[in-house]
């Protein structure tokens, strides 16, 4: 039965292909046709010019693996959003209600992000006659997962439009951009509408409350709970009294952005990405090493007049907030990360280091990983340049 379906589908594409090829009625919309066709079938056109790759994997399959790896944090994110919402609204915490409430909050974000983003993607590819890129499937899902669940939908649309057009399409589409489009969109929203993107009141979406009409609930994230600390206290006990033990932080069952709370789910995703070779293990390990070593060193030099975050167990930095999500899914973006191997270690290391430094020293941004990755995107081409220059100078001249 499946075979028959496949044959019918193939016939359908072959029959309609004529309208979309040169001289056909819908030639203008060829990119759209191609995008749909390649979802089902690998393109039959072989590469005509070198470099030839060894592998049958193309961008679409590559991106599908990332999408697959994004599923654990997404599913947990839906559950967690629903859970926090039901908890805050005072409703009963049965699993079915939680999932429904989570879906009602999260799905609109994803749908708007995909719709607005694909609008620009299709518009650009029709006018500029380049194929529609599958990279957007990942961008359009990553972006809503970094947002707080209460963000207004029009802001999602504005943000993803900025990310796709200014972050990617003005450079000529996927593979040519300098900055990660999803992060560009996130940073743009963060600076343009800070009231909706940060603070204590945006992290819990209350869809339907049982008793009173509550619009926003104060749900402090673990990274913001301690910025209020005036004196030097034992930060770990303070976090624990606020309900954030190391286990909670690792599992991710606390208010936060939609997809970024659970380090455990990101770890599963990281394993998938590393085993399939889609994400660079160098960046991920380098990032974790940078984060741990920097927070460890800060712990040594920590004194009473510094921010209490200097004295925390490094593992808290690893588990709290969006670091795991950022380093696994954002930093490993093959386009905006450096392409050379040694550079990748340094790139990851600096992201980890900057994340800790921003969390500790910049009271304005309790969550540092987004800006750290964006900042290192800026230096990725320089890292590549330096490594290539060093390799060339090491080479023995053959003339």
């Amino acid at each position, binding site marked *: 039965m499946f075979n028959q379906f496949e044959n019918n589908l193939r016939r359908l594409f072959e029959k309609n292909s004529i309208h979309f090829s040169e001289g056909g009625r819908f030639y203008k919309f060829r990119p759209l046709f191609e995008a749909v066709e390649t979802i089902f079938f690998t393109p039959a056109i072989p590469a005509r010019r070198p470099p030839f790759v060894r592998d049958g994997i193309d961008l679409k399959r590559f991106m599908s693996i990332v999408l697959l790896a994004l599923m654990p944090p997404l599913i947990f994110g839906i559950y967690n959003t629903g859970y926090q919402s039901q908890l805050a609204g005072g409703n009963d915490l049965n699993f079915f209600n939680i999932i429904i409430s989570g879906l009602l909050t999260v799905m609109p974000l994803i749908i708007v992000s995909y719709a607005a983003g694909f609008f620009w993607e299709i518009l650009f590819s029709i006018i500029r006659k380049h194929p529609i890129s599958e990279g957007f499937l990942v961008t359009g899902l990553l972006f809503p997962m970094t947002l707080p669940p209460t963000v207004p939908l029009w802001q999602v649309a504005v943000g993803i439009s900025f990310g796709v057009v200014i972050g990617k399409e003005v450079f000529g589409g996927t593979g040519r951009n300098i900055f990660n489009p999803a992060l560009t969109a996130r940073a743009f929203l963060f600076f343009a509408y800070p009231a909706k993107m940060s603070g204590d009141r945006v992290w819990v979406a209350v869809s339907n409350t049982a008793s009173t009409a509550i619009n926003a609930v104060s749900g402090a994230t673990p990274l913001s709970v301690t910025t209020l600390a005036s004196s030097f206290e034992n930060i770990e006990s303070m976090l624990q009294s606020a309900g954030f033990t190391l286990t909670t932080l690792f599992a991710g069952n606390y208010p936060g952005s939609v997809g970024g709370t659970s380090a455990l789910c990101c770890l599963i995703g990281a394993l998938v990405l590393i085993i399939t070779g889609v994400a660079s293990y160098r960046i991920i390990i380098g990032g974790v090493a940078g984060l741990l070593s920097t927070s460890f060193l800060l712990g040594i030099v920590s004194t009473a007049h510094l921010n209490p975050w200097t004295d925390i167990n490094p593992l808290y930095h690893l588990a709290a907030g969006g670091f795991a999500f950022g380093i696994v899914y954002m930093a490993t973006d093959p386009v905006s990360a450096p392409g050379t191997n040694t550079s990748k270690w340094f790139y990851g290391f600096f992201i980890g280091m900057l994340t800790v430094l921003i969390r500790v020293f910049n009271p304005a941004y309790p969550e540092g990983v987004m800006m*750290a990755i*964006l900042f290192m995107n800026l230096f990725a081409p320089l890292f590549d340049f330096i490594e290539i220059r060093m390799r060339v100078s090491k080479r023995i001249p053959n003339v």
Partner: protein
Amino acid sequence: MTENLVGIFLNSVFTGNILLAYFLGMCSFVAVSKNIDTAIGLGFAVIFVLSVTTPINWLIYHFLLAPGALHWIGLPHINLSFLKFIMFIAVIAAMVQAIEIIIDRFSAALYAGLGVFLPLIAVNCAILGTSLFMVERNHTFLESLIFGFGSGVGWMVAIISMAAIRIKLRYANPPYGMEGYGLTMIVTGLMAMAFMLFSGISF
């Protein structure tokens, strides 16, 4: 004291980057960032000019121009601060001439690479801007030295990363009308957004 100086240095390199936070010195930044080696050369030239002119301008301002500065020759009521722009520019122009002669003597390749942009440092707004910020922020002499040096380093960091990004931009396929400088300006804007990472940190 040392902590304060380190703070001023880090502040002028990152938080208050003269190029990406105040958008001064854009013209040579956009024009000379095509080649990374030239960018490094111009970066060093800007660092040198800044760390010499800022302290010299400090001396001139505090001993000649500021209200009451002429107290030391017995003229406490004279206020020459309206001359500050012209005096600062004169010092900068003289320093740039000196640098030009030195580079011409020691590195002909760099001299040729920098071309017209070396004399144009004289009208680079980053240089004048740093001197004026130095007056506005009431720096001491040592602080003005560090501030000038730090601003130069910040400018150099920006132009080198831009030059590296422009290597990658050679593969870009921008829409009609966005090629070249248009795309460079957009990248500069995105770079400034990335540098906002430091805004809010007070060293």
